[in-house]
């Protein structure tokens, strides 16, 4: 089982990247995608545009006696979709939400039951408190990929995530394996992101080119890999999927 966490600034396109990645990987592998954003919309485009019940929401509704079927939903091409969920806006603690959701999945034996080949964690990267660091702990993701554009705030968040991971380098935590450039058509974007990667000893493993097709597919509640499988943008995601598997299998960026 390969466990990958995709981090990045809120709104940078992590969920779009992760769900397209899941869709591309699902052609060869059994994939589980776990959304770790309180908005709980990570897997929406694998589920026909539907928002599904979250782990935390289900615990709140049904108490402790919940079953895996209540929180693991089968989406496009058999991708297993899970949303951690989050607190009521304005109150509660989103970090604890992730911790509780992970504990519940572990308690219910989600990995042992479904035996996915690949697990993708889609994680918000603006905040790096204990809860948001949970997916990179020993026993969870082994590999991290950071999604960024050339925008200043996106690079700032990417740097923050990379530093958080480096803080734990003496522990058995996940390591950053590469950068994914999700184009926003900022001036000198390639150069800016490549420089950031170089300064941190990383590589830009794939550029996801700007495409209107992403929006069109999402309007129909789909990934571009599903809606426009032969498009260039779908090819970007397929290429990203291949490279990630290659990197994770070798363990070297």
């Amino acid at each position: 089982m390969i466990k990958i966490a995709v981090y990045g600034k809120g709104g940078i396109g992590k969920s779009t990247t992760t769900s397209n990645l899941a869709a591309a990987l699902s052609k060869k592998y059994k994939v589980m995608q776990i959304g770790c954003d309180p908005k709980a919309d990570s897997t929406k485009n694998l589920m026909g545009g539907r928002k599904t019940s979250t782990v935390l929401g289900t615990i709140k509704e049904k108490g402790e006696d919940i079953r895996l079927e209540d929180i693991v939903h089968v989406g496009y091409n058999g991708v297993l979709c899970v949303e951690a969920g989050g607190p009521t806006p304005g109150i509660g603690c989103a970090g604890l939400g992730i911790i509780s959701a992970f504990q519940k999945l572990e308690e219910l034996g989600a990995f042992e039951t479904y035996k996915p080949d690949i697990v993708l964690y889609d994680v918000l990267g603006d905040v790096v408190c204990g809860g948001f660091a949970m997916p990179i702990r020993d026993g969870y993701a082994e590999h991290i990929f950071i999604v960024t554009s050339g925008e200043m705030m996106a690079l700032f968040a990417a740097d923050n995530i990379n530093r958080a991971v480096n803080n734990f380098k003496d522990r058995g935590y996940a390591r950053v394996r590469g950068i994914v450039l999700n184009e926003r058509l900022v001036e000198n974007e390639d150069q800016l992101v490549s420089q950031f990667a170089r300064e941190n000893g990383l590589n830009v493993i794939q550029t996801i080119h700007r495409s209107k097709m992403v929006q069109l597919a999402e309007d129909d509640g789909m990934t571009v890999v599903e809606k426009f499988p032969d498009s260039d943008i779908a090819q970007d995601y397929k290429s990203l999927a291949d490279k990630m598997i290659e990197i994770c299998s070798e363990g070297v960026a």
Partner: protein
Amino acid sequence: MKFDGNLCYCSPAHGGWGIIRVAALIPESYLLFVCPAACFRHGALGAIQHGYKNRISYLYIDQEDIVEGYDSLIEDGIDELLQRTKEKIKLLFVYVSCLDDFIGTDLDAVLEKIGKKYPDIVFRPGHMNPIASSTKLPPAVTTYDSMLKALPVHESLDENITFYGNFVGIPEDNELITALKNAGKKVRQLSNCSTFEEYRELSLSKYGILLKPLARLGLVNLEKKTEAVHCNMFASYDMDIIKKSYEDIEKMLGMQIIPDMAMAEKKALKAIKNAKEAVKDLPVYVSDSATVFPCSLAVTLLKYGFNIKRIYAVDLVGPDQDAIRELSEQYPDVEIIQADHPKMNIRERNESYALAIGEEAAYLSNSRFVADISADEGLLGYQGVMILMDTLTEAVKEKADIRKLIEEYGGIV
């Protein structure tokens, strides 16, 4: 059946085996609590009262530490503790509070690092998180699991038996221990260990007998690493259930032990008769401070002819769900009272001419007579029935001093 989840009333008799008392059962162990200064005062005072003062330290954290995270503070605190403590610590439990569940302290990673610095000491994590009490992993369960994870995986196991889940030793003259001894087998119990080395031998036994559900997770996790097997013998005072448990043990061991127990069975039956004659038709109240399965005990006692009127409980688990059905169908007049319901604070306080089994029932009913039984500890099999019955027989001979009984029994520590 489920009780209301609401505001709780905590009676002075709400007590029993808390994490300090349980973790401190491991010889040569020490407990470090990492928490805000006001946290766990109740436990600290109780620990002093019960003589655990020299086995516990506290590392206080403040608001700034919480905001910044305090992994390094825990490491420094352990360094300081180990330098200051004169007696050699073999196992250090580091307990964090529910606060750490919120901020996500990775205690396992912190202890792995510190373990490399002190290879002669076993470090185990603990979670003092009452908010987990209503989950499938309450502190008592995770503490026991953490305790068993301190046991080594032995290369080969011997043919002996370890009891898991009990905190007070089952007496050596118990019929099961006697029968096993007669068959050339040794019984290992946590409470009989006087050194840490002896504790580490608990996992040397090929066979385990699980006496309480709280130990199940720890035992199952232990068995994943070894070839050990176990069977259950949860607290029961029903002669048929006891016999069935012994049959299960015979199957597990592949040998006969029941023929050796005829005398114990006879003594238990005689004790039931004596207790019934002594207690007569006195109303009897059963509480979950006396037994893990109060409804099951109530049904058993009703079958023996006792006049069970009430059951006081905070939670009803496992076999008690079947017992509740039996009570509602066959004994609908028996009241089941939520012991921590806020209305318990405005109950009638006049003395009730009744016999309470367990301190919680004694306090809440202000009963004249009290059978001092706590969490089924020390009771097993036919001998357990006999001790329970003898306790009932003795209890109705004189008015109980409930305050004194509660002080001795202790709040949760």
